[in-house]
């Protein structure tokens, strides 16, 4: 792994070996995150542990989605449906006696497999076409449960046996904490994979594709392959998230995976900042806590049930619109901008770290990232006529 420009930011506090190897850094990150989660989950009540678990499985999906959107510029509305694939796979396997880890692996694998042809299709589609296709997928897939009611449980869905904590943890080990551990383990694995992906050659290839497809293909990159890979990996992450959702909530029904879910996922990645793994954390927090906050708001303002029921969705809508109009790089981007300004004000840090340092995969990649010359957007009949070049 090459030495990364981002490394200068951390100054001399972090040892050289850690700075220069992505693998080591990600391992360290993962270990630290894992320990933190372990400690935190111990302190939490059962209810909070469930929320932690929910945050973890949302993070899995959001991480995949944000990498897809931010790194290769692809928008998918189908990740809710992909979660359903993972969830139903895990559900069917759990009910025939599979253990937690194998069934989760199988759920992830199943979604990965489905993700490949989808990814191939996705790689051929640009922006709105991909969004439209995944939209159709999101609306169409859950309907399959109605078509095959006996196998998939129809409208009522499947109930899943809860995972039992291993005996070594003691007889009174709370189920919720065990579920939180499982979910967090999944999240940490996803973090590891995507952190490395972002900073590797693959990540650079994806960003090259996102920034300028034509240049990338001229430069020898097989665009189709990279986009398929990005899509498949993000699908797998969504499948894992869905599988974890099944394990934690123990019921899955078509009603749990409506189009709204995919839209809320999109809002989650947008608010966090497209392409940013840290942003995925913000998004997960939003998705977990928003229903509670809106409920509380509804109660304290005595809002009607119609209003309170739809309030989370309205917030997602406002987030999506607001982000595009006002705040394209999301929370993480805003934080990063503040950090940068503070750093330059203090005269420390990497100085002019631009918003999109290549290799610095964690940067919130602004949605309006590739500054295409205005000319490219104008459908002028005469080629090359309107470029703002000096003549």
């Amino acid at each position, binding site marked *: 792994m090459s030495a990364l420009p981002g490394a200068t930011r951390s100054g001399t506090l972090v040892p050289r070996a850690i700075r220069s190897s992505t693998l080591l850094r990600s391992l360290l990150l993962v270990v630290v995150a894992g320990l933190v989660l372990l400690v935190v989950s111990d302190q939490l009540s059962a209810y909070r542990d469930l929320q932690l678990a929910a945050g973890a499985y949302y993070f899995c999906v959001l991480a995949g989605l944000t990498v897809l959107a931010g790194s290769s510029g692809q928008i998918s509305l189908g990740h809710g449906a992909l979660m359903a694939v993972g969830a139903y796979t895990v559900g069917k396997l759990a009910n025939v006696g599979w253990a937690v880890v194998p069934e989760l692996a199988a759920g992830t694998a199943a979604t990965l497999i489905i993700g490949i042809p989808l990814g191939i299709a996705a790689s051929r589609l640009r922006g709105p*076409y991909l969004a439209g296709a995944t939209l159709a997928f999101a609306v169409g897939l859950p*309907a399959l449960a109605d078509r095959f009611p006996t196998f998939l449980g129809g409208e009522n869905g499947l109930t899943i046996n809860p995972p039992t904590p291993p005996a070594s943890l003691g007889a009174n080990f709370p189920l919720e904490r065990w579920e939180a551990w499982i979910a967090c383990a999944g999240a940490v694995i996803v973090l590891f994979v995507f952190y490395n992906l972002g900073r590797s050659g693959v990540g650079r290839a994806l960003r090259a594709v996102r920034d300028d497809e034509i240049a990338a293909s001229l430069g020898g990159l097989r665009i189709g392959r990279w986009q398929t890979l990005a899509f498949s990996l993000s699908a797998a992450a969504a499948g894992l998230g869905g599988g974890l959702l099944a394990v934690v909530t123990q019921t899955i029904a078509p009603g749990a995976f409506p189009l709204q879910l995919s839209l809320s996922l999109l809002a989650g990645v947008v608010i966090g900042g497209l392409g940013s793994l840290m942003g995925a954390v913000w998004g997960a927090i939003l998705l977990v806590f928003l229903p509670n906050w809106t409920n509380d708001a509804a109660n304290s303002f005595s809002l009607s049930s119609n209003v309170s029921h739809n309030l989370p969705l309205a917030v997602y809508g406002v987030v999506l*619109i607001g982000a595009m109009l006002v705040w394209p790089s999301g929370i993480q981007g805003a934080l990063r901008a503040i950090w940068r300004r503070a750093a330059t004000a203090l005269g420390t840090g990497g100085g002019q770290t631009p918003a999109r340092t290549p290799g610095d995969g964690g940067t919130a990649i602004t949605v309006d990232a590739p500054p295409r010359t205005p000319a490219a957007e104008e459908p002028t*009949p005469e080629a090359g006529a309107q470029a703002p070049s000096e003549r």
Partner: protein
Amino acid sequence: MTKFIDLTLNGISTGAIYAAVALALVLIWRSTRIVNFAQGAMLMFTTFIASGVIDGGGSYVLGFAVALASGFVLGAVVERVLVRPVEGAPQLNAVILTLGLYTLLVALAGMIWGNTPRSFPAAFSLRGYRVGGTTLLFTPNDTFTVLVVLAVAALLALLFRRTTLGLRMRAAAFAPEVARLLGVRVGRMLTLGWALAAVTGALAGVLVAPSVFVGPNNFDPILISGFVAAVIGGLDSPPGAVIGGLLLGLALSYVSGYEGSALVPLAALVILMIVLMIRPTGLFAATRERRV
């Protein structure tokens, strides 16, 4: 055999609806190079307004007119306020923005009118025509639907091809910078384009409401089908939208009849993928392929 005829006739009437939605999408695409994913939600909203008018005692005609008028206003406001800032930006921004608008409109509709779908009256009789001894699955209301959609398509074609306003709108759509240099107030033309598209969508909403019922999410399949129809015909081509709509209506009608209605959205997806793989610019690619 009667089943086949029934399905064909049904396909024509649903196809007319898809054609109208596709036409709205094409109008917006041609003028601003944006796929308006909020189109379904916008027409849902205007249909709710019409439903409110009718439930409050207004006549069908009044409700119809209110739907169209509110569509015009909604389309104009959305373009001017929300879409204008992202018109020059990369595609991704517009996609996310329209999706956000879709989400917000669905939520607002739920807040204002509740999530329980309600019925909507039809303009004409819903009893099928009797031919010989059998009753067809085609009603006077369906005839009305098809005729209205065709009439609107024809009116729009006339507007664009034969009027100076249409000339300005086409210029603003094809070459906005050059159009500015010719004194065309491009911004206003784009707003007008969205307004007209929204009217067309509102029309589709009112026409299809009796069969799908009026609820925040009840029009989602219509949007998807409209999108697929627009892609089939070519996003640049209004006649393509109409023909694409009819073809898709037929295809999905057969799927629904022989395989069950649950599979319709997936069938639409499959058709979409086939078209995009084989002929991405659509059957009637009117102009040179732009950056699709």
